[in-house]
Structure formats: C-alpha cells, structure tokens
C-alpha cells in the first residue's frame, strides 16, 4: 500500500491539515487521523452517535430472555419439588435473569466495539512510531497519483510518502 501523511504536534494544527485536505478535494472517508490519546477537536472527531447504548440494551434483552427461558422452561421440564417451594420460583428467577441481562449487555457492547471500531482488521496501514510521542498523524492511504501534489501542499512541510 502506499500513503502520504504528516505529523502534527497538537490538535489545532491537525485540524487545519484536515481542512486543507478537504479543500484539496479529499473526502472525509479517505482521510486517516491517528493519535495515541483521544483528541478533543470537533472536526477531527467526526462525531456520530455509535448507537452503542441501544446495542447494549438489545444484548441485555437477549440475555434476559435466555435467563427467563433457562429458569422457567427448563425447571418446568424437570419438575422436582424442593422445600415446599413452587417449581418456578420467581425470586431466584429474577436473580438469574438479572445476571444474564447484564452479561448480555456487556458482551454486546464489547462485540459492537470491535465491529464499529473496525478492529480485528488485517492489512498494513499507515503508522509511525512518533504517534506514541503524542504526535497526531493525518494522512491518506492509497492516494490517486494525480492528487498527490495537492495533498502534499495541504499537509505542509513535514509530509512524507510511504511506498511499500
């Protein structure tokens, strides 16, 4: 893959670089921004609700239903009397339902994170060890040849090409 990128010392200059790339005609989807800590600038964050809460709630719902089935249906299938209690005892049922609801929610959250954050993807990507040094990387992967010049101008003096 080949790419072009530059490193910036703070969020403000990174934001300027992104705006410059926009002016040069690069769409948001092609711009790669990487940092070693969450950066707090509006344009760079590209805020979009992740809907994670609803996914977690749905996972919780599934977990709760599994818990309900487990305690009620299976208990009725093998009815054994203990301690004079009913075959389906609601208090214990609520406990197991609660635990499996929370488990479902947490597993759904973790899975959704991996999917929406596009983790577990293979393939080499733009990277630089200076990101660890609190630099912010702004770049474009696989830039079409005719736009390389415009991008170099947008990214400014410190820009680098990567060809591999």
């Amino acid at each position: 893959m080949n790419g072009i990128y530059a490193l910036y010392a703070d969020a403000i200059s990174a934001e300027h670089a992104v705006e410059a790339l926009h002016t040069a005609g690069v769409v948001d989807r092609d711009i790669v921004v990487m940092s070693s800590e969450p950066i707090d600038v509006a344009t760079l964050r590209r805020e979009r609700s992740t809907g994670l809460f609803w996914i977690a709630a749905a996972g919780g719902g599934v977990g709760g239903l599994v818990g309900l089935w487990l305690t009620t249906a299976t208990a009725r299938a093998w009815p054994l009397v203990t301690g004079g209690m009913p075959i389906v005892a609601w208090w214990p049922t609520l406990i197991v339902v609660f635990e499996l609801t929370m488990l479902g929610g947490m597993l759904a959250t973790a899975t959704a994170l991996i999917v929406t954050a596009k983790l577990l993807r293979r393939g080499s990507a733009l990277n630089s060890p200076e990101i660890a040094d609190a630099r912010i990387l702004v770049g474009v992967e696989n830039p079409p040849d005719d736009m390389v010049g415009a991008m170099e101008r947008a990214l400014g003096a410190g820009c680098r090409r990567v060809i591999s």
Partner: protein
Amino acid sequence: MSRARIVNDLLRPLRDTTWRFYALVAVLAGIVALGAGTWVYQMSQGLGLAGIRWPVFWAFYVTNFVFWIGISHAGTLISAILRLVNAQWRRPVTRCAEVITVFALMIGALFPLIHLGRPWLFFYLIPYPSERGIWPNFRSPLVWDFFAIMTYLIGSTLFLFLPTIPDFALVRDTSTGWRRRLYGGLAIGWRGTPQQWHCLESAMQIMAIAIVPVAVSVHTIVSFDFSMTPVPMWHSTIFGPYFVTGAIFSGIAALIVAMAMLRRLLRLEEYLHRVHFENLGKLLLLMSLLWTYFIFAERLTVWYGNESSEMVVLRSTQHGEFAPLYWTMIGCNFIVPFTILSIRRLRTISGCVVASVAVLAGMWIERFLIIVPSLAHKYLPYSWGVYRPRPVEILITISTFAGMGLLYALFSKFVPIISIWELKAGESHAGAQG
C-alpha cells in the same frame, strides 16, 4: 511531564527485568505449587484431611471464597464509579484496581472447587443438556453464585481488556520482534483513529454503568449463601448490604497495599502520589465507618431480640471462645483505620498501608467469624462442635495469597500497570484547563 518520559517510565517494567523479579516469581511460584500439590493430595484422600467436621461443614475454604470475591470489588468501585463521576485522580489507579478484580475473582472462584466433596464433578453445576438427568437447581444460592461470578468475571475481564487495547498498540508500535507480534495480536488492529477513540469511550461508559450493579449483585448473592438458611445469626436481612460494604472495604485496602508495593518495586513515585493514597485512605475511612455501622446494627438487633439460639452465637463471639478473634477484628477494622486515617499527619502513604494491612487481616477474620461460630452452635446443643483448622487448609490459604502476588507480578511485567493513554489524556486535560 513530557509524554516521552511517561511512556518510557511506564514501559520500563516491560523492557527491563532484573534478577529480583525472577527471584520473586520463583518464590511465589514455589508457594503456589505447594498449595496446588496440597489440593491434589486432598482430592486424592478426601476432605477429611481438612478440619471441617459435623456440624461445622464450611470453614477456611468458604472464608477464603468470600474474602477473595470481596477483594474483587476494589476495581469496580474505583474504576467504574470514578470514571462515571469523571474524577481526574483516578487515572494512574484504574488499571491496578481492575487487575486486582480479575485476579481476585479467579482465585475466589477456585475455592468453590476446592471445597467440593467431589470436585471432579463440578460441571454438574453448568446447565448443559445431558443424558444423565443432571440439571442445576435454580433455587439454590450456589447456582446464583455461578451465574453472578461468571457474569462479573467476564465483565471485569472486558473492563480490564478494552481500555488496555491502546496501550497494547503503543507497545506494539515501540517494539520489535516477538514483542511486536504478541502485542500486535493483543491490540487487535487498534489504530487510534478518532472514530475508534469515540467508540472506545462510549463502550467504557456503558461498561462502567453496567459493571456497578453487577458488582453489587455479586457480593449480595454471595451473602445469600448464608442468609437463605435458617442458621442462627445467618438468617438476617442485613447480609446483602453488609457483605457489599465489607467487600468494598477490603477491596480498597487491597488496592492501597497493591499500589504501595507497585510504587516501591517499579519506582513509580512520580505517578502514584501521596494524594492518591490519601484519597483512597479517605474512602477506606468511610467504609470502615459504614462497616462498623452495619456490625452495630446487626448485633444490637440480635442482642435486643434475645432469641436463645442467636444469643448463644452472639455470646460465643463476644465473650466466649471466639472473643479473642472478634476483638482483634474490631481493632483491625475500626480502631486502627479510624485512628490512622482520620488524623491527617498519620494519613501518609505508610500510614495508609498499615491501616490497609490491618483491614485485610480484620476482614478475613470477619468472614471466618460469620461462618464458623454460627455453624458451631446451631439449635440443638448436643450437636454443637469445635472447629480447628488443619495444615492443608492453612497451606492452601497461604498459597492463594502467593498466587495473587504471582499473577500480579507477571501482569505488571507484560502489561503497563498504569494506563498510559489515560494518564497522557489527563495531562492534556489539565494542560487545557490550566
């Protein structure tokens, strides 16, 4: 403090290993191996090797189970609640705490296996379809334990792992060879794009909200192991909140001790300041007062009620054969921490550590005193009995403490024990405000 300095300091334990580390691991591993061997011996001979007897059928092992599950409440309180209220001082503390939770849960979950009469059949508790007509009884608090601890263990492992991903990526990007491959795998393709950061922070917010009720429920359900039986001084409605309080209490003490050891052994004096210990010390003081309140409320109610079977148990702890342990517990859990932690001059790092060690000892004794005196004096006096621990129980107990130390030492060797990205983000936050 410069970012480079932070990264170097906190990655140093991963890069440099001295002979002292190997020696520590060897000693701890030796003790753990001894404990494991003892357990295998016990499995081969039978639980008769332990001190349990008619009618005291639960003693050291269940004490340890409750104790370790209690310790595991450290991580949640600190990490989740402090994240939710956005307390900035939590940053160097969160991962230490979350690690305690995961390992304490794993060790605690071992004890239901160790104390089983037929541990090789533990899988009877797992609801899987079989031809043998074996199915768990959902009315049993032990089955609730299974679900609660499983949920909490999976939840806290995720809670620990997810915010560690950026740090794994950091190690991947600053190393070569096998380290790069290993941490690259653990970082599961993390790049640090704003989208990923946003997803991670949303996920952590949800996990923090979810894990707090789970933690409260776990120790409540452990307390139900006792309160659901008609045993004198067990069948009390106070057990749920009482146990959760005790858990958070012992958890904070464990966290203070762990942090103090890390600070000394990994030379993290620049990152773990007196203020962190002081803040945790204030929380410990609060929990000590809360715990004392619960003890007072429970015992006053029993004493006032004057029910004969309960009074026997109450007297045996306060005046009888358990009195030395009982008053030691009061000293360790109330007098020592209250004195040290309420006087500012004494509330130094060493002071907090002394108070915490006392609390840990006191809380272990408290679990023991909940279980054994009640079982030793049930309703029919002819069936009362005296429990004495035997070597296998003591050995296995000691080896679990060594096991905790071993797991912690190994973890801090392979994973930065302070969350680097959160610390750096905190510096930016402070820089932006200042």
